[in-house]
């Protein structure tokens, strides 16, 4: 049992900042390679013509999920040291809806807007300004809805523990679901190929 390395005190928190920067480079690199520096490609997800958001996101989740599960099964990583943040179901469902609407209006999500900005997109830069404004407004309004913010606290809960299924079975079900979603995405891209922004870049 050696991982997560940081939790076992293998390096200081100053070193962790360098690691943060390096991991960030990998993150930003992959986002840009995936086409996520372009609002047209990101938004096309919601018009069924370019499904890169779904494909990249689900294959990333599946890859990391299998890796984490495998490393914990062989005893290399202690899953209990990975912090599962609490579920506040109603605020999170509402937050997700707001994010989805904001995604179609703004064309980016917070991470991808950083990549758009760094590759010269003016709309990406303006989006980042909006992000600052939105978080500032949230911060200023926070005292008004602190109670709602902390409502429907379900504690630290995973899908396996919630459904009473084994971790491995849920991993398997998520893989099946992802394969189904990929098949649907390929079908949808063919059907709406005439308006796929990637074809006319």
């Amino acid at each position, binding site marked *: 049992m050696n991982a997560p390395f940081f939790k076992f005190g293998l390096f200081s928190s100053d070193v962790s900042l360098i690691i943060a920067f390096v991991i960030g480079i990998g993150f930003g690199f992959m986002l840009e390679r995936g086409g996520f520096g372009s609002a047209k490609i990101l938004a096309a997800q919601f018009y069924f013509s370019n499904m890169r958001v779904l494909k990249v996101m689900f294959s990333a989740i599946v890859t990391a999920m299998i890796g984490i599960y495998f490393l914990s099964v062989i005893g290399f990583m202690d899953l209990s040291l990975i912090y599962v943040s609490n579920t506040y179901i109603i605020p999170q469902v509402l937050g997700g809806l707001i994010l989805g609407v904001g995604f179609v209006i703004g064309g980016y999500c*917070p991470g991808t807007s950083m990549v758009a900005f760094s590759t010269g997109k003016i709309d990406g830069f303006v989006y980042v300004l909006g992000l600052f404004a939105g978080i500032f407004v949230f911060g200023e309004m926070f005292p008004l809805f602190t109670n709602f913010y902390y409502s429907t606290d379900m504690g630290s809960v995973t899908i396996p523990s919630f459904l009473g299924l084994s971790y491995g079975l849920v991993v398997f079900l998520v893989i099946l679901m992802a394969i189904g979603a990929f098949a649907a995405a390929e079908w949808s891209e063919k059907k709406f190929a005439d308006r796929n922004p990637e074809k006319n870049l």
Partner: protein
Amino acid sequence: MTSLIKSITHIFEKDESHVHLEIKAQPYWNPYLTGIGLGLVLLAAYVIMGRGLGASGAVSTVVAVGVNTIAPEHSSGNQFYTEYLGDGKTNPLKDWLVFEVLGVIAGGFLSGTLAHRVKKGIDKGPRVSNRTRLIYAFIGGGLMGFGAKLARGCTSGQALSGGAILNLGSWAFMMMIFAGGYAAAYFMRRQWL
């Protein structure tokens, strides 16, 4: 030689007579392979740090520090800001997510440069003006900043990172992003189609 001079002069008059000598942008990578690459980066974050990736949290820290610099008394009475400001012993900007997002900016620029995709411009559909597009970008960014704070994370920190460790709230959140996006898409079609 003449073509070299031509290309140099073209750099300076790029705005008037673009495209011709500009190196063509490379196609994007296969989405599934990119996803596996992104998944390995996420896995590395979990193995090395025991935590996932993020984006909106870094902006929150900067906002909290900004408010605290301008109006320290105001921020100290607000639990949302104080959480990002820490105990006052260490600089709140010396934060994991802040450095990670600086890396994201660098990594995006690196990838874009290597693929000849770094180019000043506004990304939008043909039927919308630049001005409208920028207003929408600001509103969308604002909504997502607000929503991400309510949900305790954005597409990176909550959907992607929480999704990989099967966090229930993260999956509910992720499904709602798609629901919200598809519900609003019809009203935004002029911007993109």
